[in-house]
Structure formats: structure tokens, C-alpha cells
């Protein structure tokens, strides 16, 4: 079993599981009924994608675990999600900013993975294309509404962008695992995606009349190695509480 591919699939699955979970927290609390439905839609799509990535990972591992075991029985040091997705929802501007940042990297990433040398990985990425396109459209629509709407919404979006900025580098900075898998044609070439990400984001900031945050000498990272901030543990404690309270039970 390719240990590397297993790790890579965890990254893809964990990102979407954590982000989907965060979005699901809005259910019943969104700014308007229509957006309650829209955010739940995004959450469902992401958790669905996560389930597929984790199921494939579990199968490759061949150790008798399934997607649920990976989702509900691993601790924070075993999660491979990026730091961006575990950030709390904050206000609606923060949630939209997080979504736009994630999708601006995630959409090209999944598009590239549709050409993966691993047919099954390519299939999952392919199946997600329509969903991802919709997420991009929806989140960017709100990015513009908030950026160009009122002074208050603009200020909130600027603030959100400034606070989440440190977590963007991790999305497009390749490590040894990324490079190894890209070389074999299985993974995406993050180094090639980086200029696309930067260019797209610059365009989005300009459209919304946002100030690009200053470049950071020490952007945050560590999620891919299981070194998370304090948020993930709280998130997982809640998410896994019922499953862990009944070991071996089926639901």
C-alpha cells in the first residue's frame, strides 16, 4: 500500500470533512432562510466528498478501518487537514472569506486531480467538479456583495481576509509528499498551481476593492503533519463524542 497516497487522501478528505463540519454549524443560524439552505448544501457536498476520499484511503490502508473509523476515531495529531479549515466560522464575512480562499486553491487542485494517474482518485475528483463550480460561484457572489455592499460589510470582509491570510500559504506550498506524488502523476503539482492561486486571488481582491494583506515572513503551517492549532481538538471532541462514547456500536 502506498503510504504516501494514503496520507495524501487523508489531506483531501480531512480538509473537506472539517470544512463541511464548520459550515454545518450555521444550520438554523444563517442570516436568511435561503442562505441556511445554501450553506447546508455546501456542507453536504464537502462531507460527501470527504466520505469518498476517506473511504478510498481506508481501503488502500487495508487495516480493516472504514471511512467512519478514520473520521470518528482519529485524534487531532492524526488529522491532516490544513489550518484554514479548522478556523471558527466567526461572522458571515469570515465564513465567506474562508470559503473563497479554500476554493480558489481547491478548485484548480481538484481539476488537476481529474487527470491523476490513479483512476479512482481521478474519478472522485471528476464527480466533484460540478459541486465545486457551484461553490465557487456562490461564495464569490457573496464576496462581491459583502466587499461592495455597505461600509460595514466591506470592513468585515477586509478584517476577515486579514485574519485568515496567514493560513493561505499552506494551501499552495508543496512539501516532500506533494512533490513525490506530483512526480508520479498521481498528485497535483502545487508549485504550478501557486501562480494561478495568486493571480485569481489578486483579481478577486481588486473586484471587491479589498486591500491585499501584507506578505508574511512566517505564514502558518503544520496541519499536513498533524500539528494543528487549538481549534481542531474542540471541533473533534464535539464531532466524535457520540461515536467514541459507544465503542464498536453501529448506527
Amino acid at each position, binding site marked *: 500500500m502506498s503510504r504516501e497516497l494514503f496520507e495524501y487522501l487523508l489531506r483531501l478528505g480531512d480538509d473537506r470533512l472539517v470544512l463541511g463540519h464548520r459550515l454545518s454549524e450555521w444550520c438554523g443560524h444563517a442570516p436568511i432562510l435561503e442562505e441556511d439552505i445554501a450553506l447546508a448544501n455546501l456542507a453536504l457536498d464537502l462531507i460527501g466528498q470527504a466520505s469518498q476520499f476517506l473511504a478510498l484511503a481506508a481501503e488502500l490502508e487495508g487495516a480493516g478501518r472504514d471511512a467512519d473509523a478514520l473520521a470518528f476515531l482519529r485524534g487531532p495529531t492524526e488529522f491532516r487537514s490544513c489550518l484554514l479549515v479548522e478556523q471558527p466560522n466567526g461572522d458571515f464575512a469570515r465564513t465567506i472569506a474562508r470559503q473563497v480562499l479554500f476554493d480558489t486553491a481547491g478548485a484548480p487542485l481538484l481539476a488537476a486531480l481529474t487527470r491523476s494517474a490513479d483512476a479512482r482518485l481521478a474519478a472522485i475528483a471528476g464527480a466533484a467538479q460540478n459541486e465545486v463550480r457551484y461553490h465557487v460561484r456562490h461564495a464569490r*457572489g457573496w464576496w462581491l456583495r459583502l466587499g461592495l455592499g455597505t461600509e460595514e460589510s466591506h470592513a468585515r470582509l477586509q478584517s476577515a481576509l486579514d485574519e485568515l491570510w496567514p493560513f493561505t500559504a499552506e494551501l499552495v506550498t508543496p512539501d516532500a509528499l506533494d512533490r513525490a506524488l506530483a512526480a508520479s502523476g498521481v498528485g497535483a503539482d502545487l508549485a504550478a498551481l501557486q501562480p494561478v492561486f495568486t493571480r485569481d486571488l489578486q483579481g478577486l481582491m481588486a473586484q471587491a476593492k479589498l486591500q491585499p494583506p501584507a506578505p508574511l515572513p512566517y505564514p502558518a503551517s503544520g496541519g499536513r503533519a498533524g500539528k494543528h492549532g487549538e481549534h481542531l481538538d474542540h471541533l473533534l471532541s464535539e464531532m466524535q463524542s457520540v461515536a467514541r462514547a459507544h465503542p464498536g456500536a453501529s448506527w
Partner: protein
Amino acid sequence: MGARGRRSVRRKAALARKPQAARTEWALWEVFVQEKTGQPHEHAGSVHAPDAELALENARDTYARRGPVTSLWVVEARHISSTTPDDSPFLLGPGPAKLYRHPRFYKGAKE
């Protein structure tokens, strides 16, 4: 007027005093759904939205969650003109039989 009547008058007055800015309601849009090509668009219901883009997305999320849907139309409700039941008898009602509109009135090739 009982207690409930007085309360409702007070509330109506309170709402009337609300300045325009305090109301944040988005416009009402009517949604028409076409399930398959070849079929007409049918009225499905309405959504609230501040612009056409979000109206389409909201309509998709609300009325097209369970397929099949091939096409969606959204129209601001205020742009729809309709007949009223008072108009209907003279505008829409069946007049005396106007046979010249029906195929049976005319002789076909074989008759």
C-alpha cells in the same frame, strides 16, 4: 375590540413607524422550473433575493434539490401582470361556440 385587537393595532402602528432602512427584506421572485427539455416551465413557488444571480441560486437550492431540473426561470414578482377573477369572464371566458377555430368546422381532404 378585545385585548388581541388592541395589541394588533399597536403592533401595526409600531411597524408603520419603522423607517424604511430598518426593513431588510429582499425582493420576491417567482420561480419556474423545466424538468426535461421539451416540457414547459412550470411555476414552482417563490424565493426572496436581492439580485437575479442569487435568485437563481436560491431557486436552485430550494426547488431543484431533488432532480430532474433542466432549466430555471426567475422573475421578480412585481414584473408579473395577471388577470383577476373579475376580468376572467369577459377576458378569458368561453364565448359562444366559435366553430371556425376548431378543426371539425373544416372539411378535410377525404370528406
